């Protein structure tokens, strides 16, 4: 699904990622954890194509193609979905329109016709229940005036409608109380399948109590310094990040 090799990325002159390697197979859930400033958000931004980052070395191969050559929208249409840490408010554009336009853009890319209006409404109403959101959210402007928890739920709703192949969750648990976290986690878990992979980027172990990863990686100083199973997360929770950083150094 995704192979990242020796990835180096700079912001301006400053190197942030310094030789990152990561391999994700279909259906796997990977958690990348790390202290602040380790390069976690940079990783999600580079993968989704946000401007402002220079990749100076290395490669990212997604389904056999060079992901880094694609425009952000082409990555999205190819099935890479980024759930934002800070979802953007888009006043004046309704939530349901964005969902429909995004789905149709993706379908067009796949050579399919536009989704039938009634089918679409049924689909969205089905998915919105999953996230325990009120239907009125569909008709509000995208994220405008949403609470932190509502914004994160809305991100997962978009993922549920678009059915991506690779779902990158950037700090999806930050700013959520435990009830909201459970709802978001249930939504994510319902999306898990043998073909769909997840890359969860998180600072806290708490999320992993609700979304069980297959692999846990520690990102420090721009590289993966340690990888393991779910037990690694518990160890990190107990001991903090410093011991891994020391080991790596």
């Amino acid at each position: 699904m995704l192979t990242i090799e020796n990835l180096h990325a700079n912001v301006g002159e400053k190197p942030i990622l310094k030789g990152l390697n990561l391999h994700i197979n279909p259906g796997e859930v990977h958690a990348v954890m790390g202290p602040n400033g380790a390069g976690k958000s940079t990783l999600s931004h580079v993968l989704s194509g946000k401007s402002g980052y220079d990749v100076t070395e290395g490669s990212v191969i997604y389904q056999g193609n060079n992901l880094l050559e694609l425009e952000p929208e082409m990555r999205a249409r190819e099935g890479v979905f980024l759930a934002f840490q800070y979802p953007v408010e888009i006043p004046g554009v309704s939530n349901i329109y964005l969902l429909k336009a995004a789905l149709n853009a993706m379908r067009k890319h796949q050579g399919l016709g536009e989704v039938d209006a009634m089918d679409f409404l049924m689909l969205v109403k089905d998915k919105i229940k999953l996230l325990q959101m009120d239907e009125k959210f569909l008709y509000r402007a995208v994220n405008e005036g949403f609470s932190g928890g509502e914004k994160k739920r809305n991100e997962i709703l978009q993922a549920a409608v678009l059915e991506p192949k690779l779902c990158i969750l950037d700090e999806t648990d930050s700013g959520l109380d435990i009830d909201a976290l459970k709802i978001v986690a249930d939504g994510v878990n319902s999306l898990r399948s043998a073909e769909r992979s997840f890359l969860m980027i998180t600072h806290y172990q708490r999320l992993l109590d609700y979304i069980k990863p297959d692999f846990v990686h520690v990102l420090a100083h721009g590289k993966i310094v340690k990888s393991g199973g779910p037990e690694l997360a518990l160890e990190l929770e107990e001991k903090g990040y410093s011991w891994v950083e020391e080991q790596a150094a």
Partner: protein
Amino acid sequence: MSNDQAVSQYLAEYPASSASLPGQTLPWLQQFRKQALACFSTHGFPDIRQEEWRYTNVSAIEKKRFKPFTSTAQGLTNIDSHVLDELVLQDMWTVVLVNGQFVAEHSRLEGVPPGVIICSMSQALEDNPEQVQAQLGQAVSDDEHGFIAFNSAWFSEGLYVHVPANTVLEKPLQVVHYFDDADALLALRNVYHVDESAEASIVETFAGAAQAYFSVNVTEAVLAENASLSVTQIQTASDKAYHFAGCYAKQAANSRFRHDNFAFGGLLARNEIHTQLFKAAECELNGLYLGNKRQHIDNHTRINHLEAHAISRELYKGVLAQRARGVFQGRVIVAEDAQKTDSEMNNRNLLLSEDAEADTKPQLEIYADDVKCAHGVTVGQLDEKSVFYLQSRCMSEEQARNMLTFAFANEMVNKIKHKSLHDFVLKQLLQRFPQQGVEAAWL
């Protein structure tokens, strides 16, 4: 120089054209026009050396030598009636003026409450001259600038509305102005007089065929105590047209005035919305100007807080593409006695090309010491975070930018609550939006 020449020529032609202006038998009106003419003769047309005209050069108007109204002017001769049907909102009362002339057969005023007067200015001068006399020149003075004086001297028609005390017009009145007389100069004078505790909503649509014409509209809106008036201007004049429209409100205590200004058309358009607020009066001024090609759209607002406890809210947004130029000058004046004034003024501009220009100048003049006045101005491009967000949701960059630009403009359309009016404004916006592929379904 050309200013002087143009002024002299208009003055020389005045005696010939004035004979066909309404109100010939009213000495007070003859006097009113004579004073205005003297004022115009002294000041001429506005000049960029005047602070309030520094961003708008009207010399093209002077060079153009438009033909002022004469009795032989073209009326509703060859207008396709479905051109008007496109402009008329069915759930409102309608007054239609074509080339500045009242067209009875297209106007519909059935069911207007008793006591309410809605008629052409020439009719009002015949039927109710004292009432017109009492209002004319109340809310704006000829000294303001040359176009006002010109209008006072030359106005040939207009709309007169009087809503008596405690009367509520339960549906809006639409005034449809349509122009297709090449090189015509039409000076129209309107009075909207809303008496104590009365309410009215007036929609002004300005449209025209693709010919150069110049319409000079001056509206005096007089609100008595506790009156409420909403004026919506939708200007989709032809792209060769010159448009001046000034709406001057005088708001007695506790009155509420709202003005929504959609300035989409014209080669050169200048809008003025001025209001004087007496005790605890409220005003809300909204504007959206959309400039394309080489359009120049100037919005000049002045909110004069004369007494205490008045509230003013103002939001103007501009979207400027290609070589268009948008101007916003917003002045808020708080008099010494206007304590507890609460005022907010904002102007936001999006520039879609490197050649587009926005000139914005908010001005606060505060002479009272216990007031709350805020203002903000932005000129810029779209938020790149939002563009990326939409791209990450499968939208192309172009589509993302179009959506965000349209959403920015649409905020002003969404302030319109009357459904048919909202849909009409939205349709005009979609038709004239500078970007391709913009859809109403986004909203």
